[in-house]
């Protein structure tokens, strides 16, 4: 047992108190290492310091699944980085690659045809639902509600199946490429998607009965881990965590990319800022995403799915194949995309929040520098902020409610 007296000088653990304008107080703390070998830590460690049952300080120690993506990206051609960045958030692959592709398209001066933009939006929304359901399941099991965990993961399968029908892969779609998308809409996709939506609407009511309105969940979530709008802004929080704190910010309306300007949807915002508000915002976002999918299926325009500049390069035989199967063939020139020197930034709203890419090109076939800031990396600071003063048993509740995805934070 480690018990640190107040006399022991420690610089970092209590710095938060200084930042929050507090005096450095003497705490007699009990130090716990939650993770990386722990049933509920994920691929990370949280160093928790307890004063009795109260958390004095929880320090997220991330990096256990760091894959040096930014460095690896510097050594690869532009197109090869798509599957690489996809692996940061494998559960939300469409959105995380879309940010990268948007930045590359800006560098190349390309614009995807309208149909491709609609298809990207479609997959992005399917991924958003799947990502929220994943978060839901984790939130459930963090409170030991195994039914919510199994249900959410089971229902996520419906959306994963839908994505598979569209792209040919369950999770790692690599669907969005500079200049367009890789596959056209399958024949019977509309019926399938509408059935999935109707099913999900029914299930959300059961979720409500067994989870959201369950008195145990209300007890565990209401007024737990509260963050208010001004603090969320100061700390640069993104995604549903931000919107649950009362800030109406969503990269989909801020950046106006894809087909979003042509679609009608609401950005759910709640004022409470607690764990329950984050949960409710996610549920409402699932509903909004389903409404977006319906609109896309109604509005999707006909036309090419790939930019003319590269489609032209394909020999007639391959063009014929693309027309008949709806599966794109890539021209050989696509391997060595060569943008002008310069830089570009792009932001895309993922399920977890906003992802940011900054690409610096020196005019060669490989990017000079790719900077990626994922929503999880921006939200990691919440561990420190939300857990301060919470009870120890609130830690998993808070962890589940902020929907932190360690591989995404570590990149």
């Amino acid at each position, binding site marked *: 047992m480690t018990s640190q007296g107040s006399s022991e000088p420690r610089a970092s653990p209590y710095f938060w108190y200084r930042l929050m304008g507090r005096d450095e107080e003497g705490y007699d703390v009990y130090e716990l290492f939650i993770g990386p070998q722990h049933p509920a830590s994920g691929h990370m460690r949280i160093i928790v310091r307890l004063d009795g049952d109260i958390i004095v300080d929880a320090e997220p120690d991330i990096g256990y699944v760091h894959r040096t993506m930014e460095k690896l990206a510097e050594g690869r051609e532009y197109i090869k980085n798509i599957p690489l960045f996809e692996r940061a958030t494998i559960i939300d692959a469409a959105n995380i690659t879309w940010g990268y592709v948007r930045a590359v398209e800006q560098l190349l001066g390309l614009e995807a045809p309208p149909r491709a933009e609609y298809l990207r939006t479609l997959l992005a929304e399917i991924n958003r639902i799947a990502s929220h359901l994943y978060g839901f399941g984790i939130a459930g099991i963090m409170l030991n509600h195994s039914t919510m965990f199994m249900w959410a993961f089971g229902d996520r399968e419906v959306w994963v199946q839908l994505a598979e029908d569209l792209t040919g892969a369950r999770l790692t779609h690599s669907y969005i490429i500079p200049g367009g998308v890789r596959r056209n809409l399958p024949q019977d996709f509309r019926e399938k998607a509408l059935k999935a939506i109707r099913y999900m609407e029914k299930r959300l009511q059961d979720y409500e009965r067994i989870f959201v309105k369950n008195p145990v969940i209300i007890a565990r979530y209401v007024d737990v881990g509260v963050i208010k709008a001004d603090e969320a802004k100061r700390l640069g929080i993104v995604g549903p965590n931000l919107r649950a704190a009362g800030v109406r910010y969503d990269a989909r309306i801020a950046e106006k990319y894809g087909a979003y300007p042509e679609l009608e949807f609401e950005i759910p915002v709640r004022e409470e800022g607690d764990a329950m508000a984050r949960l409710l915002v996610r549920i409402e976002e699932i509903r909004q995403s389903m409404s977006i999918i319906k609109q896309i299926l109604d509005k999707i325009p006909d036309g090419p799915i790939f930019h003319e500049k590269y489609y032209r390069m394909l020999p007639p035989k391959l063009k014929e194949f693309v027309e008949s199967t709806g599966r794109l063939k890539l021209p050989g020139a696509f391997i060595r995309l060569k943008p002008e020197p310069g830089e570009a930034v792009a*932001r895309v709203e993922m399920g977890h929040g906003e992802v940011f890419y*900054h690409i610096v090109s020196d005019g060669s076939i490989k990017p000079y520098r790719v900077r990626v800031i994922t929503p999880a990396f921006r939200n990691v600071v919440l561990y420190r902020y939300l857990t301060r003063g919470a009870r120890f048993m609130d830690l998993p509740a808070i962890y589940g409610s902020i929907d932190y995805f360690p591989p995404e934070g570590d990149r």
Partner: protein
Amino acid sequence: MAILDKVKEALEPLGAKVEEVRPGYITASISVENLKKAAQLLFNLGFDHVVSVEGVDWIKDNEIEVAYHAASYEPELHGVIVKLSTRVPRDKPELETLIDVWPSALYPERETWEMLGVVFKGHPELKRLLLPPDYQGPPPLRKDYKVPEEGFIVDLTRKQ
């Protein structure tokens, strides 16, 4: 564009070079001394958080560019990113931390210290974040840290 003019008006007296490279993407490069002042001015304009803090190693110029991408949650500044950047020498990359202005720079600054060896003076916890605590090598995102690459041809005639 109104925002560009505002940023120009605020930062050009400090000697910043402000331009809009793409719609909604404004870059402003400034000297190290004026960085904090410029950050405060940007904050006052409404850029309330940084999306990213990063370093770019310009090995040919023997300099590291440290860039802060500031953005805002306010509806009138949606879709605008200002890159506030400065260049520091590669052999002594030091600048003052901006977490007093933007607390959201806390973790990205720590990561930039770790990955490029840029020292942010006044940062309360410059310690390993993503790399293992016992990592010894040079800062990995510098250009002189090479990642071995392999070709795409395997010659089986030469083996054995």
